[in-house]
Structures are given as C-alpha cells and as structure tokens.
C-alpha cells in the first residue's frame, strides 16, 4: 500500500464505525499513516458518543451499513444528515447489503466497498476535500 502522507496534511478527522475489528483496524491504521486523525467506533452507540461530544472534531464518517448498536449504520447516517448536516457520511458494505439499502440511499452516491480498499477510501476523502474547497 502506498501512502499520501506528504501531499495530504492532517486536516480531516475521520470517524470509522465498524464492528469488525480487523476491517476497522486495517483502514484506521492506513488512514493514520496517511496523516488523518481517526476515531474508531465499534458500533453506532460509540459513534453517537463521539458525534455528541462537542470537543471532538469529526469531518467525515465511514460507516458500515451493518454496524451493530441501537441504530443500524443506515439509521446513523440518517441521524447525521438530519442533526449534523455539515458532516459527510459514507456508507460501506458488501455488494448484497449495498443493493438492499440502495433504494433508501438517495443523497450520497455509491457505497464504498467493504472490506475497504484503502486507496479508494483516501481517494474519496481527497475528492471530498477538493469539492469543499472549490
């Protein structure tokens, strides 16, 4: 895996919501290596703790659609869009799960594939930053 540390200074804080410790650990490690600040949440309840903590900066949320917790990943995304519209949410999931929820996802384009493809995640974050700056 290559990294983009030199070209991408720490500017974004990414919240990863994923109950699979291996998936979460791999993508979190990669993003930190690329220079991003990362908050790891094992489920949507932990994510809500982070999202409602006023001192914690979060810019982008990567959320497994199948994340466990009081809310599903999809419900968490809807909560964020309603209550924290300044945040970007990207749902991630396998093809089958993505297809099941695609009808409800009208705001944010295609899913990220999961297991994560680290370069694709970084590419997404970079495009997001570029679109915000333009």
């Amino acid at each position, binding site marked *: 895996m290559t990294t983009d540390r030199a070209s991408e200074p720490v500017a974004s804080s990414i919240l990863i919501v994923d109950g699979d*410790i*291996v998936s979460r*650990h791999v993508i*979190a490690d990669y993003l930190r290596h690329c220079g991003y*600040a990362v908050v790891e949440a*094992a489920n949507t309840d932990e994510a809500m703790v982070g999202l409602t903590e006023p*001192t914690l900066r979060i810019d982008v949320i990567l959320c497994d659609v199948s994340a466990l917790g009081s809310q599903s990943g999809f419900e968490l995304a809807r909560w964020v869009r309603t209550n924290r519209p300044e945040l970007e949410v990207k749902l991630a999931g396998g093809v089958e799960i993505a297809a099941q929820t695609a009808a409800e996802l009208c705001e944010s384009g295609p899913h990220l594939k999961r297991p994560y493809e680290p370069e694709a995640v970084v590419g997404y974050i970079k495009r997001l930053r570029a679109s915000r700056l333009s």
Partner: protein
Amino acid sequence: MQPSSALPREASFAAARKCVLVVEDELLIRLMLSDGLRDVGYRVIEACNSDEALVLMGTSVPDLIISDVRMPGSLDGLGLLAVVRETLPTLPVIITSGHLQATVATADGATQFVAKPYSLELVIKAVQNELAKAL
C-alpha cells in the same frame, strides 16, 4: 484532549516502533489514551473489549497492553489478563479500574495497576516505565 506537553521529548525516540494495545470500552477514554500514546510516538491499536483484543493479538503481538477491567464481551479485563498470562507470561499488562484494588490486579498478574480516574501523563509514564524495563 491535548497532546501531553509535560512529557519529555526523548520519550518519542524510546517509543519508536513499540506497539501498545489499548482495551477500553469507553470511547472518549480510549481515544484520549490512544491519541496521547500516539503523540509520544507509540503505535497504538485499539480494542473496545476483550474479544476484539484477542482478535488483534492473533494478528500481531503488542509490546504492552493497557486494559480496563469492567467491559462488555466474553471476558472482563482480569479474564483477558489471565488469557494473556497463559500465552505471553512476560508481556507487560497495565490494568486500569475505578473499582478494583491494586493488590487484586497485581495478584492476578498485572504488571502495574492504575486507578481511575487517571491523568494521561500518569498512564504514559507507566507505559514508558514498563517498556523501559523490557529493553
């Protein structure tokens, strides 16, 4: 959650490449501790319970574990400690708790006990001391 400015800069060099596994079910505490340890140069892997910790340890063995006691999951912190002691008897394990007595934790094999609530500096110094012994 600010970087720990009270810690000596040389700690970063000593910390290079050492990996600390933080096992804590409270997100904000885990984040404070993990980011604080990263700020002084450690590589940190995070687990929200003992089950996640054991999965991570199956992929790579950390140089030190910091674990809370009361956590959801198959094992509490002392249960995790018991498993670690069976397989990795010399691995430093720091137990943190707001409910447990230090003597209980150390009798069960903890290398150190840190009572909650704790300061970040205190835990980082405990980590540094333990890893310095291991050199």
